[in-house]
């Protein structure tokens, strides 16, 4: 894509660059007025976009069918409005019906596929030996089995972690820490990728490298 040529697009790119630098001024310098301005602008813009999207969605998915005579669509509107009674003590009981409806639907829908997706298929996948697999596949197979047993032992609190239980539970704790370390490493990688994206954007806006 070529560098923006429309004045509005150029302005947008430069505003983006300014706000990026303003936000990073917090860690590269310290808290300051420019950072505060960017922070509040970000929250305000996010809120504004959400409102516009929500109104547009209600218009397309609720109001339009309702105006076409599909009267059942009045139900979600009523349930939605009932949520707004929360700040008023006398009538906040009405919000409970909406919340219970949402929780009930959410729980019922989620449980439908959970047993297969989160338990049965994953257990089957874990206990099925990689017959034609590489040595690494076999290592993973044994590692998963061993890790499962040892970490489960670590979380068994009805037996004191000493004697024959000492070393397995200790090992289970280390495996758990290793797993959490991997999660944390992935989190760091995500943040680094985000930062590299902003650095790349700044270089593009300043025409140091080509526009994507």
């Amino acid at each position: 894509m070529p560098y923006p040529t429309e004045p509005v697009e150029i302005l947008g790119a430069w505003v983006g660059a300014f706000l990026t630098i303003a936000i990073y001024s917090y860690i590269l310098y310290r808290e300051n007025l420019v950072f505060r301005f960017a922070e509040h602008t970000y929250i305000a813009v996010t809120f504004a976009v959400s409102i516009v999207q929500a109104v547009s969605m209600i218009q397309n998915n609720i109001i339009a069918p309702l105006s076409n005579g599909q009267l059942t669509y009045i139900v979600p509107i009523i349930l939605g409005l009932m949520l707004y009674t929360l700040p008023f003590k006398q009538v906040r009981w009405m919000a409970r019906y909406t919340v219970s409806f949402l929780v009930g639907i959410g729980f019922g829908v989620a449980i439908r596929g959970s047993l297969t997706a989160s338990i049965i298929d994953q257990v089957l996948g874990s206990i099925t030996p990689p017959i034609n697999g590489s040595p690494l596949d076999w290592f993973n197979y044994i590692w998963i089995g061993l890790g499962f047993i040892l970490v489960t032992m670590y979380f068994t609190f009805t037996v004191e972690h000493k004697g024959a239980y000492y070393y397995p539970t200790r090992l289970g704790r280390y495996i758990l820490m290793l797993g959490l370390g991997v999660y944390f490493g992935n989190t760091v990688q995500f943040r680094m990728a985000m930062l590299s994206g902003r650095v790349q954007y700044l270089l593009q806006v300043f025409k140091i490298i080509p526009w994507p």
Partner: protein
Amino acid sequence: MGEKSIWVKLGELDRRVLYWTLFILLAVPFLYPLGLPVSISETTLTLYNYIETLGPDDVAVVGIQAGVSAWPEVLPGLVAVTKHLVSRGVKIIFWGFYTDVDMTMNAIKARVPQLKWANEQVGSGDYKYGVDWVYIGLLAGGEAAVAQLADDLHSVIKADKFGTPADQIPLLQKVHNAADIALVVTSDTGDYGDYYIRQWAVRYKTKVAEVGIAMNYSTFIPYYNAGLAVGALKGVRGGAEYERLIGSLGEGTQRMDALNVSHLLTIFAVLLANICYFMTRGKKGGGG
């Protein structure tokens, strides 16, 4: 008071020095690409191989559940997969559950020029809006909506982003439920991958693939190992791998060098901090 040792001084280093170093180092690979190698992961390859089996009679869904803030991680992968789908002639339905989904859709469209809006001139090889691809816009309702989309697409989708009724859009007339969809590509920073697995893959055997942030990869891999997912891209690295597979190097490949440099700095900082800690442990004014 005696003078502080070099280890104490390093241990007390202002964190802003590290941030500035990181900020500057990240810029270097964009100016002078290092071309560090990126090997192809199995989960990336399986997704690529599956899309290779699809054709113009198939319909794929691209679910955008990642916001603009996650673009550096997910956009290269989303663009690469979309390019691949387009090159195979697969029909595509885009939708999203994130409020800024319009911006992500525009970013994908800007990078995949074959996607044409209804008011744009369509040339040879281009994707005609409504026939070859369609954009639904923002959906709400979380897992309940994902489940209902699987059961009856038209009960959730009444119109596209521009208000055109669903029954007037040729592509949407072809699909009714998850059984009509050959592939769901879910791009998210949260739980939507789980939703599609539970509601689409388990119940309708629809192929599901994740183009998510790196953090999601380790939680999605058990689904892949259990045969419930057809593939997964690991953040920007997955995007870079996919760009290599389709032979269209882009932002993911550019960013991988920067990411590698940042990892080297992180490893260096962790090692240095630990060395400083152990060198000063137990000493007055030290770390222990």
